[in-house]
């Protein structure tokens, strides 16, 4: 009998903290747990009794990396509960705002968290010594995304401009004109980024799980659409809980989730796979040129999917910014009249589906809040993926196996803070 165990005390370059524990016995994975025991922050509970208009300012603090996603999923749920309907102009502004976060979050992930793995560096600062132009290009794109979010909210972390019904303020023409110029100048960078990530030295692995994302009738989905699973199940956002279930597992403060009893996969790669027919032409052309065949089930291709989505966001932002300059300044929000009721909202956070539901009393105070972040949805699938990775890589020594598993976790860009966290790696081979 042989037993093997490997431990990594803190998993680096993920957002938040967590632990991985692996125990291998006689060539089988006896136990594998992605442990998330970041202290719970109890958002759903202290949201109770708060006023409807405070919610986006509160939920943005769940995650400093994707505050816009939290603001928009919660705002949508509020609008659904109160029967408010956005104007097309506000809807376009929201999409623009979201583009900023996608660019900033994806660029941060590609360059600061993931790329060092492919080049054998501990961090982006070291990578910048050998690949200065690429890292600078990445940080520049990250800054561009941040600045687009700032145009709406003053700062990129916990921005202050969004409200249920839209925004407090409409951007001025001069802000928009300056932004448009910078976005046009960044198109080539985004195109080069796709080509660069496509050349990363990807391990050749395949992971099969239902891919779940939003699906819109005409656009690449961000903040609108139905929830589509690659099994063929397409449902209204409001019906999420009929098919998708969250449950607690003892080793984690984050909840796990299943689709009809089985793990599933959310994030940029499933989203791209499900929406290949919704790409802007220029993006589709660049994706074609990579030579990588999509749909892809290789989780390492998530890096390419992120680069592709940066390109989509830049193309979309240019389109929306240009259109904004040709119309009168819009009223930035629709009026909200609170009433007793319930509503669900769902948008595509950079790292996957983010679903919220709120019930309100007649005064518009929260009676119940339910938030399902992408990381808890991915967790069961991530554990399956890693289990397979262990079996495929048993001949690696502990250090190499550990590095491979950590890189495997990073593919999902788990936002452990969303689920609250501590990622430690333990590999126990018992020999």
């Amino acid at each position, binding site marked *: 009998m042989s037993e093997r165990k490997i431990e990594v005390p803190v998993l680096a370059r993920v957002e*938040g*903290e967590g632990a991985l524990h692996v125990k291998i016995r006689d060539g089988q994975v006896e136990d594998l747990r992605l442990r998330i025991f970041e202290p719970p922050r109890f958002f759903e509970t202290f949201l109770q009794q708060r006023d409807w208009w405070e919610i986006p*300012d509160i939920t943005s603090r769940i995650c400093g990396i994707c505050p816009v996603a939290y603001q928009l999923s919660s705002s949508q749920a509020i609008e659904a509960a109160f029967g408010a309907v956005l104007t097309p102009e506000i809807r376009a502004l929201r999409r623009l705002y979201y583009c900023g976060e996608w660019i900033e979050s994806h660029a941060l992930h590609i360059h600061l968290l993931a790329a060092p793995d492919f080049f054998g560096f501990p961090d982006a600062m070291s990578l910048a010594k050998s690949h200065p132009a690429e890292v600078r290009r990445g940080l520049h794109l990250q800054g561009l995304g941040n600045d687009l979010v700032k145009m709406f909210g003053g*700062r990129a972390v*916990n921005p202050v*401009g969004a409200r249920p019904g839209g*925004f407090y*303020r409409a951007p001025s023409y001069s802000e928009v004109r300056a932004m448009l110029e910078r976005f046009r100048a960044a198109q080539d960078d985004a195109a080069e980024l796709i080509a660069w990530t496509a050349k990363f030295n990807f391990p050749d692995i395949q992971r099969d799980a239902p891919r779940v994302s939003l699906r819109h009738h005409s656009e690449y989905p961000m903040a609108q659409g139905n929830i589509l699973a690659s099994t063929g199940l397409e449902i209204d956002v409001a019906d999420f809980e009929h098919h998708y279930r969250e449950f607690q597992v003892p080793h984690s403060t984050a909840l796990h989730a299943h689709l009809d009893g089985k793990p599933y996969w959310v994030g940029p790669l499933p989203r791209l796979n499900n929406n290949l027919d919704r790409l802007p032409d220029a993006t589709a052309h660049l994706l074609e040129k990579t030579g990588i065949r999509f749909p892809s089930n290789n989780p390492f291709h998530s890096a390419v999917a992120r680069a592709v989505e940066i390109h989509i966001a830049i193309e979309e932002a240019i389109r929306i910014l240009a259109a904004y300059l040709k119309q009168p300044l819009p009223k930035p929000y629709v009026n909200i009249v609170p009433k007793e009721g319930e509503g669900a909202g769902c948008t595509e956070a950079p790292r996957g589906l983010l679903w919220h539901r709120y019930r309100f009393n007649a005064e518009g105070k929260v009676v119940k809040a339910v938030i399902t972040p992408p990381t808890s949805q991915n967790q069961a699938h991530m554990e399956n993926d890693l289990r397979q990775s262990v079996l495929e890589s048993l001949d690696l020594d502990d250090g190499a196996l550990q590095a491979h598993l950590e890189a495997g976790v990073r593919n999902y860009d788990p936002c452990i*803070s969303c689920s609250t966290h501590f990622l430690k790696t333990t590999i126990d081979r018992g020999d």
Partner: protein
Amino acid sequence: MEKPKISVHKFSSCDGCQVQILSLEEELLQLADRVDIAFFAEATSRMNPGPYDVSFVEGSVSTPHEIERIQHVRDISKVVVSIGACGQSGGLQALRNWGDLTYYLNDFYTEPEHIDALPQSTAFHDHIDVDWEVPGCPPDQGQLKYVINSLLSGAKPNLPSEAVCLQCKRDGNVCVLVSQEQPCMGPITRTGCGALCPHQERDCYGCFGPQGGGNIDALGRRFNGAGLTPTDVVSRLRLIYSWAEPFREASRRWEQGAQGAPLPPQPHKHGGMRS
């Protein structure tokens, strides 16, 4: 000369304060040239166990294990800098301090016995001596850079402590409290953000925490006059910095009713200010 060793540690938080550092773009690379980033789990796989010259700590203390961790960070660091509202006051998650932990655990988890949480979410300075605190949820990047640069050059950082209103007026914003009766917290909130909310044509909600000298009760009365009930005033004070003493104590007073209010409480016009 050896480069100073710096570290960044996360406690109960949203990671937003660290992201302010990770979003410094070019300046992040320059920082990495000037210092040895010895521990920063979100940014690097190199994990030097210390000791460190300067440690930046983000988040609040909300589990027994976090008490041990912050004490350890203190022991192995020459200088400890708390960054953000969580570390300075317990943060937004200190809202649970106003309720009962058992209720919180049972409300969220089916098996609450697996969850290890202290009854309260608290600031670092409740557990260790903190050398410097940078306010904000998140802190301003300019202030962060200023503090880092001051410490690296051996100078004492000195962050302004006036109210948001002063910056707001200097910037020439239209006052949302005066013109729209929005319950702006600017008069009692510490400056540093650049008056972001009034720039976005909305009220400040106090995310840089209490400003030392602000008259909280007077502003409460002003809100009262604008149609907020004493309960609404309590909830204005209990948001990001609810557990910082000035807001905490004032909110307790307002829980007892309006404070020396010359104006009778008005019925709350729901959505009146924000429809």
